[in-house]
């Protein structure tokens, strides 16, 4: 278990890796990757049972990035943990790379589920949780779901099943940045009260500031203590967090960075 200061430094480096990767790839999704830095740092370096030297460790907790387009956040975290080296980050989205545009479990050890087609990762996470329950294992499953991704019907099918099978080893983390490709969530497809929806489906729901390391540590501890039902952590985030000109800008969902944007972003992170 690492201190708040260490986790904060890790989050900063994760953000840095994301900008490096996307700056070199000249394609990919900056906004929804950057906003996960603190969540990834707290999950992988504090909350989860995980050994970066042995990503197939049978006792590990599982992480599924259901919003697969935030793959750079996952690769950056793997780099921070030593699972991949910095050089490899520059292969993102290139022919032959293990770092596919969306995570591919066949190519990169550590990726639990191949995701990218929205909604499916959460359903898969439920299946992993069910498999663990069946074997009476204690491992937990964490799934990061985008708020726009909640438009997908399969999310709610999976939510219903998770409650039905009492998957208290499953924790959904909703990356609630309020934006999706075509605009603000509620302008595209009104989400209503996300917490109330999960609660109605049988989840124990928590709300947290997705950039507050202490609050994240605390909320995951609370979620872990819940028995008999799955949990949902609604994490309020700022899309593009950490880069001033990207924050809360819908345009930075999947826009490639130009050289000048990359240099500016890098300067901000290093400043």
């Amino acid at each position, binding site marked *: 278990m690492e201190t708040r200061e260490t986790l904060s430094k890790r989050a900063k480096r994760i953000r840095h890796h994301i900008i490096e990767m996307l700056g070199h790839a000249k394609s990919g999704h900056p906004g929804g990757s950057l906003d996960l830095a603190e969540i990834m740092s707290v999950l992988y370096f504090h909350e989860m049972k995980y050994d970066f030297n042995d990503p197939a460790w049978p006792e590990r907790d599982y992480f599924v990035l259901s919003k697969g387009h935030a793959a750079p956040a996952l690769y950056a975290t793997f780099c921070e943990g030593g699972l991949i080296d910095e050089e490899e980050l520059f292969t993102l989205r290139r022919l032959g790379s293990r770092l596919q545009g969306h995570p*591919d479990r*066949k190519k990169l050890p550590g990726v639990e589920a191949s995701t990218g*087609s929205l909604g499916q990762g959460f*359903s*898969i996470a*439920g299946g992993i949780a069910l*498999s663990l329950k*069946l074997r009476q294992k204690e491992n937990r499953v964490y799934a990061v779901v985008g708020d726009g991704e909640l438009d997908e019907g399969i999310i709610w099918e999976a939510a219903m099943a998770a409650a039905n099978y009492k998957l208290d080893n499953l924790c959904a983390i909703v990356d609630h940045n309020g934006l999706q490709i075509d605009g603000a969530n509620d302008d595209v497809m009104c989400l209503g009260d996300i917490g109330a929806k999960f609660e109605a489906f049988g989840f124990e729901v928590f709300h947290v500031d997705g950039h507050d390391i202490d609050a994240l540590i605390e909320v995951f501890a609370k979620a872990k203590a819940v028995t008999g039902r799955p949990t949902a952590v609604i994490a309020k985030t700022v899309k593009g967090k950490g880069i001033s000109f990207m924050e809360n800008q819908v345009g930075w969902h999947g826009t490639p960075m130009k050289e000048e944007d990359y240099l500016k972003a890098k300067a901000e992170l290093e400043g």
Partner: protein
Amino acid sequence: MEKIATREAYGNALAAIGKENEKIVVLDADLSKSTKTSVFAKACPERFFDMGIAESNMAGTAAGLAIGGNTVFMSSFAMFAVGRCYEIIRNSICYPKLNVKIAATHAGITVGEDGGSHQSIEDIALTRVLPNMEVFVPADGVETAKMVQYMAANEGPMYLRLGRSGQPVLFDESYEFIPGKFTVMRDGGDVALFACGLMVGEALKAAETLHEEGISAAVVNASSLKPLDEATTVAYAQKCGAIVTAEEHSVIGGLGAAIAQCLVRQRPCPVEFVGVEDRFGQSGRPDELLAAYGLTAAHIVEKAKAAMARK
């Protein structure tokens, strides 16, 4: 003649294997009494999960269970098991090559009275086109059981296409199923009839009729659609010089398409297709529908003569 529906044979085989193999987990979407996964559910209740009327999540859950180390069978009617879940099967099962077996019942038009909305005539095409997927269509109950044994014992995504109605038993227990191998049911030298599923029985009847008319027809049970038995296909094109394919599926993308593609590449010869001609099904009794849609022994005889005339 003894008859058993392939779905019955599936449920029985699954229950028998499930008792021996603790890794096997079965999912259904509120149709277990019809798909016969209920037999497994009774034998191994702790490893059966009803996912409710939510096929998409059944497919995603199957992927997750496979990641967790289970051998997963998921069942529903072919229309929903393949059609409803298609993109999840593609991206979450085949793309990562997970150990999920999709066993779909009520395939084809012999679903009968439920009508066109429930008659899947596209599922072979849809599954065959997916990389990493193996596709099998058993001709009877014995072959179904052998296929289930193979599927349970081997890794990777597989599709098993099963029917609703009783089918004559064609094989005895000595039959061995090998993927990528067809079975020659009857030899012949003038025309070769490649059939799958319940059309194998029709092809055998057609061969008898042709024999009475002095035409020697071979009948091949083409139950392994992917991998395809290219060697046998080419050998019979060589030997007979005329081929007929017969399937309870659209003529687009199914067995006929697979055989034709193989032959065009390796040994071109006239091929005629018996199948559903680019149209949807409708309500009716299975036998009425087979006649109305041109899926009978008589139609195979007609096409055999047409193929021979083109030699």
